[in-house]
């Protein structure tokens, strides 16, 4: 039996695929799962004597109570999977490895939904220094930002944070950021009114300089938006 599952209580490390998480949720709620999935979960100690490992129970509780949901996409050299952020009464769960059902996810869980701002800040990993952003506010093609951010060894970061206040809602961009790795960041906005976000391919955008604490303020509104 091959298993991507890691349940390490010593360092609190949890690694499972989305498919395995789904099977665990099924089992926890009295439904069945395939014998192959169960064998993999047992091999990785996610299931012990038929019971879900205690480290995974709060994760499942959070996933069963999702209110808000976010997706963070970053453009860098090489493949950069979209991180999913799930917020519910049980806390915050981050699935950092994209939507593939069989991709191992280094799970992060936090018991309070109000921790979502700090968890997203850690995912974004923006510089702490204020300074000139990598682009001025002259309208320019979005593709120019993507090209700068995806250069190997480049010093430009680019990210799009999408959010939905309710689980079933469509995600919409709440913050698109471009930054210089040594400090200096800008919020990216469409240069003209459009129905899409700033990140749309073919869009002309403007980069408006932001102080690190202005960005933090936007992130702290995420938990407050949950109803």
């Amino acid at each position, binding site marked *: 039996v091959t298993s991507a599952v890691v349940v390490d209580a010593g360092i609190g490390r949890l690694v499972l695929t989305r498919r395995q998480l789904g099977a665990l949720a099924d089992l926890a709620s009295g439904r069945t799962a395939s014998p192959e999935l169960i064998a993999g979960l047992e091999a990785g100690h996610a299931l012990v004597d038929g019971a879900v490992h205690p480290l995974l129970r709060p994760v499942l509780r959070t996933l069963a109570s999702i209110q808000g949901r976010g997706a963070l996409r970053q453009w860098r050299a090489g493949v950069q999977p979209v991180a999913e952020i799930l917020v519910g009464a049980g806390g915050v769960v981050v699935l950092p490895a994209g939507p593939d059902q069989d991709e191992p996810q280094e799970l992060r869980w936090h018991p*309070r939904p*109000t*921790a979502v*701002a*700090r968890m997203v*800040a*850690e995912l974004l990993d923006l510089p*702490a*220094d*204020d300074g000139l952003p990598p682009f001025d506010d002259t309208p320019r093609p979005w593709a120019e930002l993507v090209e700068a951010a995806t250069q190997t060894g480049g010093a430009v970061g680019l990210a799009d944070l999408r959010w939905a206040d309710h689980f079933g809602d469509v995600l919409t961009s709440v913050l698109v950021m471009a930054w210089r790795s040594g400090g200096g960041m800008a919020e990216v906005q469409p240069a003209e009114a459009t129905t899409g976000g700033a990140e749309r391919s073919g869009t002309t955008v403007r980069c408006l300089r932001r*102080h*690190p*604490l202005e960005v*933090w*303020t936007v992130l*702290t*509104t995420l*938990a*407050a938006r949950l109803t």
Partner: protein
Amino acid sequence: MAMVAEIDVPDDWEQSPMAGPVAFMARPRHHDGQVRPTVTVTCALEGSRPSLDHYAEVQLAGTYATFGGYLLFLELTCEPQRRLDLALAIEQMGTDLTIVQRHLLHPDGWAVVATGTVSDADWPAAAPRVLAAVRSLRVVRS
């Protein structure tokens, strides 16, 4: 050496003198959230008369050891006086908090520090006044 530091306290806040190294604490008289925002001002004697870089290094190490958390903002400047500004996102006693600090460092070896503490949930509304209070830190007599 007696130092007197002050900040601009918003009109609807109260200011309380404190014993020990904390010179005073200011906070809103009324607050609806779970954690009342506070700004505390402390005066410290830095006997080693450190450089600003060394001071920042020691303060950051101490802050991380005390609070942990995620560094949101850091700025060191020597104009118009030696100053360290920082902001951290931390969790403490079951609450998610934003900490903002201004340190003013005098060549004679003393430092004054204003620390603003605000629940993340209150930060969007409270930030302008807390930041203004922290950034107004000054020494009026030493």
